[in-house]
């Protein structure tokens, strides 16, 4: 009988980095998404270190200049240096995304948890509200909210709040369904039988197992928040002084930028937004594949 024993030294476990790279080769969308996001972050960080944020605001530089050595991305009608505007705008977009995404995920997680864990009429109320609100186009309600605010009250933070107000239904339903299945799993029963307290079960047993889903919900929420804030800004409901990317596109289109030959004005913010939303969408797709092996593609 041939020996099938393999001495331990011969099986070389590949290093962590190699494993990670190997995984990225399989999950290409996650890899591309993270790579583009990294480039965007690098652009914003180097930009924040090198430009004067004041140049991103009106009347800072000569207006309507095409891209040149002095103004790499040109300047707009109102005298913003578009390079500075892009840097500040991307930073603000990230701020809105993380703030609104984080808050939405937090609210959603708490509501989903409460709903699934306590059940009964609490569950039916929360679930019912989510179901009724879901068919209503959220963007339109956001338009009503943003439209009824005084223009001076609209800031980056109010934008984030407007977005959060109607963005918790998604994570609530996702977390709820996950807690519902997890509640019935054996390790929870074991913990309960061994006398772990109610809060102990929630924080020590269920929550750690929920983390991947919370993370996925968070990225989805960041995407949704950036998307919503962009849409509001692009129809002129953003904080008009700020160089938010949607604002720049809106201002450019309402000044007839293409008709006047100022092609650089709306093009850069649109391109940046394509990269931001595209990379986030790819990351969401990749995480989906990571968390849900059923949609994993065979090689």
């Amino acid at each position, binding site marked *: 009988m041939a020996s099938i024993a393999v001495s331990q030294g011969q099986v070389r476990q590949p290093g962590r980095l190699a494993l990670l790279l190997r995984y990225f080769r399989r999950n290409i*969308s996650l890899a*591309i998404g993270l790579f583009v996001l990294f480039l965007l972050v690098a652009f914003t960080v180097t930009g924040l270190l090198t430009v004067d944020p004041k140049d991103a605001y009106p009347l800072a530089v000569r207006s309507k200049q095409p891209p040149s050595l002095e103004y790499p991305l040109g300047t707009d009608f109102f005298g913003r240096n578009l390079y500075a505007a892009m840097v500040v705008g991307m930073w603000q977009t990230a701020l809105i995304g993380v703030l609104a995404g984080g808050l939405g995920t937090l609210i959603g997680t708490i509501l989903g948890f409460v709903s699934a864990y306590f059940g009964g009429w609490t569950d039916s109320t929360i679930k019912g509200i989510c*179901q*009724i*609100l879901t*068919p*209503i*186009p*959220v*963007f*339109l*309600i956001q*338009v*009503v*909210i943003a*439209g*009824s*605010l*005084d223009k001076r009250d609209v800031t980056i933070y109010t934008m984030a709040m407007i977005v959060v107000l109607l963005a918790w239904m998604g994570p609530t339903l996702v977390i709820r369904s996950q807690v519902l299945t997890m509640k019935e799993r054996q390790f929870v029963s074991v913990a309960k039988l061994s006398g772990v307290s109610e809060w102990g079960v929630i924080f020590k047993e269920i929550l750690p197992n929920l983390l991947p889903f919370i993370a996925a919900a968070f990225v989805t929420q960041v*995407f949704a928040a950036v*998307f919503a804030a*962009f*849409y509001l800004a*692009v*129809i*002129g*409901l953003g904080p008009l002084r700020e160089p938010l990317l949607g604002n720049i*596109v809106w201002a450019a*289109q309402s000044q007839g930028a*293409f*008709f006047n030959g100022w*092609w650089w004005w*709306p*093009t850069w913010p*649109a*391109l940046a*937004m*394509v990269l931001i*939303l*595209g990379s*986030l*969408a*790819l990351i*969401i*797709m990749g995480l989906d594949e990571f968390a849900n092996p*059923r*949609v994993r*593609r065979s090689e």
Partner: protein
Amino acid sequence: MTIFSIVKRLFFLVLVIWSAATITFFIPRLSSRNPIRERFAELSRTGGFSPADLEVIIASYSAKFGLDKPLWQQYTDYISGIARLDLGVSLNKFPKSVWELIMEALPWTIGLLLVTTVVSFIIGNLLGAVAAWPRAPRWLRTFATPFVLLQGVPPVLLGVLLLFFVAFRLKALPLGGAYSIGTQPNWSIAFVLDLLRHQILPAVALIFGSVGGWVLSMRGMGITIQGEDYVTFAEHKGLAGRTIFRDYYLRNAMLPQVTGLALALGSVITSGIVVEQIFGLPGLGSALNGAIQTNDFLVIYGIVLFITIAVASLMVLVELMYPLLDPRIREGG
């Protein structure tokens, strides 16, 4: 589908519309903005009437719009107005009613969105099905990849980039507007062609922006169906690949996709509104945008409510149509 389930769905529809109406009623009233005062304060700066006159005008207009009544009465008036499909009158284009404004804008929006949604739904589903079909040629399968990469990018951004490359650089298509400046709408062939030429870029932006989503969901569905026993059975029975593809594969994936279409209606109309705005096309988006800029509050709420009602009703309609699509539901009752 029993009578009971139909009634249940209609009740749900009423609940959705009532919630949307309540939200659109109360949110603006929480704010300190007074649209009528803003409007006439602006007018008084340009035209010559005294502050005392201004107060009289504001009071009479508030009475006209019912804003002097107690809140609960305003609310019941508003809700009963909606039940009668009366959405009030425009402040800016007084005495035109909101309903008239919507009806003027609606054909433009429906024309653009109906065509683009149907086209992207068909292209996306076919590409997605092919991408998951192991027997499809490799080049055909990779055809879907660029659309998947674009998935998540809102159509309006593609619109801006298309404007730059196609309209500005290549000068192949117009830069915006519904028809060439200086022409009058009429039914001549030249005008209709001009009109269509102006719709190409927005339509392409909307189609390319939404195909990716359908490709992804259809591909997922396709992979699941391939593992089903009935597909394996059909293969072993020696059925032609085309028959399996059409009758076993597409047919079974269609129902969830149609549900997806109903759920996507809200985002379809949202991107439509924003695309209209960027291309300067007439339609609900431009009407909404004009109302926002002039703070024409009843028009804003009217359009928002109208779209909500349309989307929610279409969703229920699609649900009620399931039995026509899927015999299993018909039999099950």
